[in-house]
């Protein structure tokens, strides 16, 4: 009874995925032996082989084309398409029955599903282009209405006397565990088509996703390109639907590309990584499902993909959280060091001004440093300590610090940079560059040598004292 409640709530997607589990009811979950393991891993079993290969190939194909979908910011269109396929299945069944065939002729049903899925996509685009509704609402509308239409149709069809429509609705929920050779060939065909297309049309689809307006002015048929991408998505979705089910194909189109994005900033590499991750999830997931009892293949594959995603999000070498955290910490440390150098130089400057002579390297009192910034005592201590390690500070006590040779030059450079930027921001407040690391980049690099020269000449007449130019004085230090 309890489960009935669950399933009343969770309709559609269960049936197929549960299929694989119910074959082995009664066996315990952790039942494992090495012989089975070998058999599964070596793909010795015909059925297992088909399932594992099919899901992997599908993962590869959806990983590659899903990347474009992600970059076009339309990831959820797979969700809309997969639901929009249902009325097409009903209509195809009706037409085929009316023509006197068996209504369950697979290619016919697939064609019907593809057509109605594609019509769904067209309606999404039409809503978006002709109303103020955005992508999300357009997809939500198409998804729910097409699906409602499909359910209503299928219900009517089952009432038709003589038409054996039983099981038709399970079409879109897949049957991972019972993939047959025919499905395998179909999946392979579509997968090859789509993967090859995403490499042949790499340049065109990239341009479309990056800057469709510019693409249009270059004479590329933007609508046709958009449609070609969506046709590819629809094909993958329809094939995926009937073999592995609705939820898995949605996940396959979204998760591997999102995971791949954490590893690279290069689109071609992203495509490859995404395909590999998709294929890997399919392989590992299907293998696990075959090895252990009671693990529905579709669900396991999704969870394997999710695990890969989480791993990528944490440890991805290009945009992963860890690498970004490290960069952030480094930046903070660098800013702290810059502040220390800058403050030290200003203290030296004050001392020199006081005694009316040129600035040179002397002991700097810690108390004076502390006054200059909102440093905690411990904070300053650790800054000084790391600077010593980096050779910027020659020695220090609780009372004072003494900059090293390199440290003094660095302090001068930092101060100069800082002041030039300050001048620049005052002079050109409205055109301040964004995204610039103001400490590290040479000012000249960002602003151009002539502007820097002008700023410098202004600075000499300002109350600031002369700041040595790093190019002339600290050459060879870095």
């Amino acid at each position, binding site marked *: 009874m*309890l489960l009935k409640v669950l399933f009343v*709530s969770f309709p559609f997607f269960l049936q197929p995925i549960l299929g694989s589990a119910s074959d082995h009811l009664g066996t315990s979950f952790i039942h494992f032996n090495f012989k089975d393991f070998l058999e599964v891993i070596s793909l010795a079993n015909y059925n297992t082989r088909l399932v594992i290969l099919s899901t992997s190939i599908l993962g590869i194909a959806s990983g590659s084309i899903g990347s474009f979908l992600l970059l076009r910011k339309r990831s959820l269109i797979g969700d809309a398409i997969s639901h929009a396929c249902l009325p097409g299945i009903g209509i195809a069944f009706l037409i085929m029955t009316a023509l006197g065939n068996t209504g369950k002729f697979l290619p016919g049903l697939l064609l019907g599903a593809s057509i109605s899925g594609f019509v769904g996509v067209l309606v999404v685009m039409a809503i978006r282009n002709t109303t103020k509704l955005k992508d999300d609402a357009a997809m939500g509308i198409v998804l729910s*209405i097409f*699906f409602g239409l499909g359910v209503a149709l299928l219900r009517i069809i089952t009432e038709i006397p003589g038409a054996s429509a039983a099981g038709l609705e399970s079409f879109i929920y897949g049957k991972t565990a019972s993939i047959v050779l025919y499905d395998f060939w179909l999946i392979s065909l579509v997968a090859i088509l789509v993967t090859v297309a995403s490499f042949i049309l790499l340049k065109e689809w990239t341009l479309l996703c990056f800057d469709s307006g510019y693409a249009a002015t270059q004479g590329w048929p933007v609508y046709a390109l958009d449609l070609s991408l969506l046709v590819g998505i629809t094909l993958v979705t329809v094939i995926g639907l009937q073999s592995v089910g609705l939820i898995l194909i949605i996940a396959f189109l979204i998760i591997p590309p999102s995971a791949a994005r954490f590893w690279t900033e290069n689109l071609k590499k992203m495509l490859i990584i995404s395909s590999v991750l998709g294929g890997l999830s399919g392989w590992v997931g299907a293998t696990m499902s075959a090895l252990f009892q009671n693990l529905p293949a579709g669900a396991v594959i999704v969870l394997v993909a999710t695990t890969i995603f989480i791993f990528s999000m944490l440890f991805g070498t290009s945009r992963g959280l860890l690498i970004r955290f490290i960069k952030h910490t480094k930046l903070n440390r660098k800013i702290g060091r810059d502040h220390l150098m800058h403050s030290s130089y200003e203290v030296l400057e004050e001392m020199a001004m006081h005694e009316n002579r040129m600035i040179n390297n002397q002991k700097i009192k810690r108390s004076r440093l502390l006054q200059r910034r909102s440093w905690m005592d411990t904070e300053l201590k650790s800054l000084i300590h790391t600077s010593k390690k980096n050779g910027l500070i020659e020695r220090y006590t609780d009372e004072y610090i003494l900059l090293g040779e390199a440290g003094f030059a660095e302090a001068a450079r930092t101060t100069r940079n800082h002041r030039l930027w300050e001048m620049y921001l005052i002079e050109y407040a409205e055109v301040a560059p964004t995204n610039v690391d103001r400490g590290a980049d040479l000012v000249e690099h960002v602003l151009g040598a002539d502007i820097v020269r002008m700023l410098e000449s202004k600075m000499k007449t300002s109350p600031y004292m002369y700041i040595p130019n790093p190019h002339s004085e600290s050459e060879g230090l870095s």
Partner: protein
Amino acid sequence: MEWYNLDTWIVITGALCASACAIPGCFLVLRQMSMMGDAISHAVLPGLAIAFMITGSRSSLSMFVGAAVVGVLTALFSQWISQFGKVDRGASMGIVFTSLFALGLILIVQASNHVELDASCVLYGALELTPLDLWHWEFLGLSFKAPRAACVLTMILVINITVIGIFYKEFKISSFDPALAKTLGIHSGLIHYLLMTMVAITTVAAFEAVGSIIVIAMLVVPAATAYLLTENLVIMMFVSVFFSIAAAILGHISAILVPSWFGLNSTSSSAMIAVMAGCLFLIAWIFAPKQGLLQNYFIKSKSHNKAR
């Protein structure tokens, strides 16, 4: 067509469900999060499973709490992934709901070796059966009877109206301009999660009663229809409720009527309510006074004439 007391209850239940969805739906559409309803309705599965595993009962309340918690977690996880991982919002939603759904499936399969699956009841939503599950109660010596689903949905509707009524200002401003809301001291995040909680409990309550197609449709379609017709938020909410009730009535009638033209029995009411909501949307899309397709066409041809 014959109309029974039963049909009246079905229409009332459908209309209650549709209105309860339409109100938070307006904000989903305005905040460009329409797919959240779909995401949450898939993602609550592990919530139901865990609630059952912990309490060992199928009591509505524990399931309800479990589902609502996971519903909010769905919103939270999607937010994290898109914020910290810099992943597109739609994609992060997709990642979260497919993963949670898969997790829920595995939990359920592990929880029980005996899976009873009443596919037809499941697939088409059980709106037609709701009047059979009655609640009785007595008040001042009078005894009342009403379908349980209708009672639950009335409660949800009242909750939604109350929450929106109390926080109307906050909802409005944080949907329109979250940054401004922040400077005014309104916690947009809190409002966001309040909305997500509403969507979650509405979704759970509704699809226990009527199946999930109607929920997803009713969260988006009436609100989108209303959005095409008006620019005023209050009017938009009233209009969307009007459309959702209209869809419920038309939906049930057409579920009985349309198949009968072909000499067949009635089809699923939930599904037809969704379809009728779609028809109303289509009408608004074509005929909307300011931005309908027809209006746009006229403007074009008018200025063409002027140009000549």
